[in-house]
């Protein structure tokens, strides 16, 4: 769970001291007015509404000495990623606030989608402050730079501004109204079936499970539910999140979210072998998923994971086969020739069964079904479904830094899903070095030319930000088209009702 960073705290106002303090902190405007010239320089182009949101801050950049030493690798005991200084630079120079704002706001100009939305900050000291909200992208950016949260989470849009929730006479008037549909896939749920790593660790072998999961879930969301705006995000360590921004998805209530999540859930991670009975004939969704997953089962599960190699692990496989005669025959075979690989054992099932080691009541069809069940158990996505079921669940924002690994939670381009390598995702320290390296390379450039290339464009974050901007542009386009249609319809209805 550590990776997904969710809070299921009630939406009701929390009367906690610490939070009170933060709400009373000087607002970003005060801070700027508070005469730090450096900051004023940074935000000098606030009023500009063009796309140039990350104007190069090179002139006002703090002294290089404050940057982390490029040579020193972060000590595991005390990671450097969470240091306020690093984070401040990250937020002020690299974080794509404007696209993030547009993504959450669904329009270029601020509207309640963003303004009444809850953000929760996790501060370097470990304090957790909920119910932050911002009138604009710039105010949001200012507070991030000022408070340097280790990470922040995105919650729902509320019926009123979350900061004003205590002014309401009735607490029930404060309720969540809209949020992206979210999914969380976490590698820990795969611990019962992966052999390469466990817990927080991942390797390229087990990352394949996430790849499979993304494929299956993405296909279901697009084909079955007709969602188009799906953003997959690397969670920074060992999992992935999905954010679905379609209007229809955003406006779903808890019942619908639960229904959708349960539609997708087939195998749960915590109870090994406990599946909800898979009905026959297979539901088209399961059938399609199985077709997607079959090739992965051969290569990534049987060959790479080799899940039933040892004798005690092979017992798991036997436990999944419902026929006693068959399992006894297999057991005998594997006892006599140990060290058979999972691949061999898998084909042994058919060979032994064909040799007539089946109970009279157990048909070949049942064997096929049992094998399908096993394939599903070892490949089907294991979702942390609770995250998806609640409208007011908070989920870590894209592009924040994972405090444990320092990696940026970058979006995953599903068109080249197979190429995504979690180990090549840049860390925050690496990114800051890249800016310096670029600067050193381009010493000859004029100040004016340098200013044209924004900080994030000088780093390996560039392709991710570009992908995100493209994705958000698509979303905004669809949104404005729908908005226009909606207004027209409203206009028609309005003229009709004018009679009264």
């Amino acid at each position: 769970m550590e990776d997904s960073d969710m809070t299921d705290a009630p939406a009701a106002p929390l009367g906690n001291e610490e939070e009170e303090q933060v709400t009373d902190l000087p607002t970003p405007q005060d801070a700027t007015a508070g005469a730090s010239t450096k900051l004023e320089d940074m935000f000098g182009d606030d009023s500009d509404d063009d796309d140039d949101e990350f104007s190069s801050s090179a002139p006002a950049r703090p002294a290089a000495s404050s940057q982390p030493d490029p040579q020193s690798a972060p000590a595991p005991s005390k990671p450097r990623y969470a240091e306020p200084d690093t984070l401040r630079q990250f937020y002020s120079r690299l974080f794509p606030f404007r696209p993030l704002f547009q993504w959450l706001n669904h329009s270029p100009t601020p509207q309640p989608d963003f303004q009444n939305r809850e953000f929760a900050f996790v501060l370097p000291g470990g304090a957790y402050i909920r119910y932050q909200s911002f009138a604009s992208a710039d105010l949001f950016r200012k507070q991030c730079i000022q408070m340097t949260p280790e990470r922040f989470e995105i919650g729902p849009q509320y019926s009123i501004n979350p900061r004003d929730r205590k002014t309401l006479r009735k607490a029930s008037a404060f309720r969540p109204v809209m949020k992206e549909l979210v999914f969380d896939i976490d590698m820990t749920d795969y611990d019962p079936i992966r052999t390469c790593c466990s817990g927080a660790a991942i390797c390229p072998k087990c990352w394949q499970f996430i790849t499979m999961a993304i494929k299956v879930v993405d296909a279901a969301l697009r084909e079955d539910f007709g969602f188009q705006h799906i953003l997959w995000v690397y969670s920074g360590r060992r999992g992935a999140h999905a954010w679905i921004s379609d209007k229809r998805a955003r406006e779903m209530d808890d019942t619908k979210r639960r229904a959708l999540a349960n539609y997708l859930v087939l195998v749960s991670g915590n109870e090994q072998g406990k599946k909800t009975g898979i009905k026959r004939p297979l539901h088209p969704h399961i059938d399609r998923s199985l077709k997607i997953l079959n090739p992965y089962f051969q290569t990534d599960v049987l060959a790479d994971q080799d899940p039933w190699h040892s004798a005690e692990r092979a017992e798991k496989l036997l436990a999944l086969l419902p026929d006693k005669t068959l399992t006894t025959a297999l057991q005998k075979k594997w006892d006599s020739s140990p060290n058979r690989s999972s691949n061999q054992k898998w084909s042994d099932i058919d060979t032994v069964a064909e040799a007539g080691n089946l109970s009279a009541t157990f048909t070949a069809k049942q064997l096929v079904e049992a094998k399908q069940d096993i394939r599903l158990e070892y490949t089907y996505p294991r979702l942390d479904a609770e995250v998806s079921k609640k409208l007011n669940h908070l989920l870590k924002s894209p592009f924040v830094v994972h405090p444990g690994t320092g990696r940026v939670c970058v979006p995953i381009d599903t068109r080249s899903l197979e190429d995504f390598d979690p180990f090549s995702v840049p860390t925050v320290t690496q990114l800051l070095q890249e800016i310096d390296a670029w600067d050193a390379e381009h010493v000859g450039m004029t100040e004016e030319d340098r200013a044209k290339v924004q900080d994030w464009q000088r780093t390996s974050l560039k392709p991710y930000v570009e992908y995100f901007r493209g994705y958000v542009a698509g979303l905004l386009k669809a949104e404005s088209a729908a908005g226009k249609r909606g207004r027209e319809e409203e206009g028609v209805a309005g003229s009709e009702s004018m009679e009264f």
Partner: protein
Amino acid sequence: MLAVTSAPRIASNKRTVVDARRQQFAKTRHAPEEYPHRLNFYLVPPAGDIALEQFEEWAIARLKVLGELESCQFRNKTPAETDEHMKPVLDKYMRLSSNASRSGEVQDERKRDHYSHWTLRLAFSSTPDLRQRFARLETQLLKLRMASDDARERRAFIDSLSMSWETLSEEEKITWLDQLKAATNLKRDEEESWFKVAWEKVPELVERRQCLLKRGVAYVHVREQQTMVINEFSRQLETGLELAARNLPRMDEDNRLSPILHHLSQSFVAPDAGYSESSSIGDITTPTAAAIDGLSQHFPLCMQNLHRELRKNSHLKHFGRLQYTLFLKGIGLSLQECILFWRKSFKLIADDKFKSDYLYNIRHAYGDVGGDSNRRGRGYTPYSCQKLLTEPAPSAGQTHGCPYRTYNPDNLLSLLQSVGVSDRTLLQGVKEDVGKQRYHIACNRVFDYAHKAQIKKVKDEGLWSASELDLVLHPNAYFKRSFLLKNLGKVKAGDLGVDGAFGVSSGGAGEKMEE
């Protein structure tokens, strides 16, 4: 743009006219309601005039129906059993004829149905608890009626509802036939007919993967249509109840309706089979401590078991004692006789010990001692089946509770055999019921078997109405009914003497009484 609602909130013909003086004597201006369908979604509140008596009577009749329906649920009746049980009840209190029946009463019946629904809606909107129960029961009632409706009329009713679904074209059907069949788990004998609806309308089907999804559209088999109608009804009723709750305070000013509504909602609060005074046989005869042995043949298994244990060990543990004492109190045994009964039964216990350890409990159960409220309430009420079935199971050495629940099946069968129930098919039935945790059904099965001849007689001769033969839900009701059935004729003739009757009805008991 100003937000102007597209439809006026109150239809123009139902707007209140401001001039009260003229209004007072004016004729009602609404069109009389027409009910083209037997079923009703109750979307429009009634606007006609009815007498205050009708207002109450119709509501009470509906309440009776809902109460019966709820008790079916508490008894774990299967839909078929519920249907069977409810048929006479519905016919008696809320008959609704189909269009085909051509009965002249059709419109009146439907009007009653319509008005009583809205009366109860008002009465049960006050608390969330009542609202929820009312919505649940009304939904069940609709379900029940829908199932009994004529297929064509049901179709017409469903079509009359404005639900946004669209039947699948032949072309689409052919394209996705295999997927449709797989997704909706089509049985061989079911018709190949589906309809399309936005998936948000059928979240339960999506959740269970029982429909085909294509780009946000759910393809649902027609068999689900009824469920959807019913879900929609329940949804609309719930919002309607919320709305009624908000308007309820205005009713306070009306001193004619609010007492009726209050009374109606009160009578809905305790549905579970409570003990009723009429379960005592005190009005027929006066049971004495000495008569208990003889009467015990009429006891349900839970009490017979306690009685046998008591006779065997001359002792019962606390909860067994409590359960049995209350039962005896329920059959009409007076406190003095009850103390006498226990004193004699605990024959191994010295007087001093009995006085110090047991007497108080008996008196407390009768409300003879204890706090003010205990005394005013005349002690505890005899336990109902529901209580016996829901209390914690007895631990080793304890014998209270319902044996159908607490005994393992084999011990239960031998217990039944030892009290003289040995019919093989009956025992098989009991075993099945118990396996499905339908303990009270098992008990009623035994009752019906033991009183087969008498039940047939009262049914054939029309002595007892159907409602007097419904499921037994209280040990005392079991006793009373058994007692009456076994003494048929004598009760009416007034032949039941204090002791004599038992002597006649069971020879063995008479002898015991001499001791």
